[in-house]
């Protein structure tokens, strides 16, 4: 368990990120199941949290909880690297004999909640944070998920109780299933909204390890939101910023080869 060596240099984190993305691309294209582009956008944030030597994320006690459950398979290669699950499980993703599912759930070692219904894990994490003040909970929210009203109920609660052992990370890739969030149901100015709800709000480039280090190297003294500006489908040129790939996984051999090449 927890047999990783954390990285001190940024290029090492970039290398790890590529490995994680490639692994996700492989098991997603092999199975044909899930939300590949939504997983790829959050990888650098996760790698920074788990693998940066400067990260304040406590590998023993702290937890990442996916509220955007469709992006949660992004954590599977990381759980393999941490020793929570054997690597062969990745080849059995969504297969009858495997333990890894389209949405991560509590039956998977290293996972606490159940994925698939948006707008709920933030409240669940708030309850956990209240019950276990010695742990820090990092909640990954999708940006389109913020259209769920329950999220805003939870924000009121978190701020009211000043749950400083929570960090909310918004994967701001800009798209939901039908297009940009701003064309479906406007979210901006997100920063103003979170600040109005009483949160310390930081906006960063979610693919820049230096910026991510700057944020995640310290634990906050008050409830915090990190808006990570990300690219949907990050790392695969033909998927980047294309909402059409929200649920579509490349099946064409040429596209798969291209994707693998770009992630290698």
């Amino acid at each position, binding site marked *: 368990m927890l047999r990783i060596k954390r990285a001190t240099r940024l290029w090492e984190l970039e290398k790890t990120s590529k490995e994680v993305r490639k692994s996700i691309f492989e098991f997603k294209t092999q199975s044909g199941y899930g939300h590949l582009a939504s997983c790829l956008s959050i990888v650098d944030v996760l790698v920074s949290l788990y693998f940066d030597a400067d990260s304040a994320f406590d590998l023993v006690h702290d937890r990442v909880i996916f509220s955007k459950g469709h992006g949660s398979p992004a954590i599977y290669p990381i759980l393999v690297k941490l020793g929570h699950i054997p690597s062969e499980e990745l080849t059995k993703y969504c297969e009858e004999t495997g333990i890894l599912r389209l949405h991560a759930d*509590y039956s998977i070692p290293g996972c*606490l*909640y*159940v994925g*698939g*219904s948006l*707008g*709920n*894990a*933030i*409240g*669940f*994490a*708030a*309850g*956990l*944070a*209240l*019950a*276990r003040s010695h742990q820090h909970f990092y909640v990954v929210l999708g940006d389109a998920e913020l259209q769920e*009203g*329950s999220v805003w*109920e*939870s924000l*009121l*609660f978190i701020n*009211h109780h000043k749950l400083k052992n929570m960090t909310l990370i918004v994967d701001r890739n800009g798209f939901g299933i039908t297009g940009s969030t701003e064309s479906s149901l406007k979210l901006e100015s997100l920063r103003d909204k979170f600040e109005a709800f009483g949160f310390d709000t930081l906006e960063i480039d979610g693919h820049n390890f230096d910026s991510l280090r700057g944020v995640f190297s310290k634990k906050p003294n008050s409830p915090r939101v990190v808006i990570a500006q990300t690219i949907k489908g990050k790392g695969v040129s033909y998927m980047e910023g294309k909402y059409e790939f929200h649920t579509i996984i490349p099946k064409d051999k040429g596209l798969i080869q291209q994707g693998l090449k770009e992630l290698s």
Partner: protein
Amino acid sequence: MNFSPRDVFLTELLAHAEQDESIILMSVDMGAPALDLWRERIPNQVLDMGIAEQNAINVAAGLSKGGKKVFVYFMAAWVHRCFEQIRYSCCIADLKVNIIGNGVGMGYAPAGPAHQPNEDIAVMRSLLNMSIFTGSSIASIKSLVNLSLNSSKSNYLRLDRKLFETEEISENSVVRRGWADEVYVGKGQPKYLVVSYGYMSSRIKKFIMTDPIMSSEVAVLDLIRLWPLDLKKFEDVFKSVEGVLLIEEQSASGSISETIVSSIRSLRHKKIATIHLPNKYLFDNLDQEGILNKHGFDKESIFKAIESLT
């Protein structure tokens, strides 16, 4: 009998909570004299959740995961509002959360159909990993505390706004079965059985026990555990009677009577009658008794239904 079921329950729970700091009570836009006692005596174990049912259930699930014994207290009518969170964060996540639904049936009738949970049992019994309990006396309401603390899954605890005024029934007349109380004041074996629960049950007990003829032939099976049904236990109780009347303050579409009647073999050879609320939302400008009397729950109609079993 002049008491509020929620105060009986919350006071009993308070006694446990004072000994066990892992017990947490979450109030969602609800007050109660007993809640004031919690706030006074153990304020750190009370959470005011505001008017936010969805978040309350999710937070409750998180607290449960964190090792707390959680009770969420709100109007029963709002279980529909956070149904997704109950299903997702409690039932699918297999986390134990106790949901106290106050004001079931027509308890808040004058407030209109939004406040009349006449389908709540149907809604909650559709969920896996969920049990439903209720009570119609101080003893049975108090028993819900231990039942919920000792269970391993989530519970929906249905509490009436008030109970029907009734004389104290002698302990000798009550057979406490755990899942139900059977009340009978006659001699020998009862010929007929009336099955009900909550306010309706307290009302029927009053009607029957104060009538010399009815009380000599009719027993009341006052259900505490409403779901899941233990059909074997019903089978045993039904064996010795000639006919059964099932009365529920629920719409027919949401009742448990149909399941009982269709599942119990011995009932196929017995006379059966049922009384439910109509399958429609009620816009009557009446209080609880007014609505019940209008829709076939008056004493005369109930006695006629019992007589139809002969």
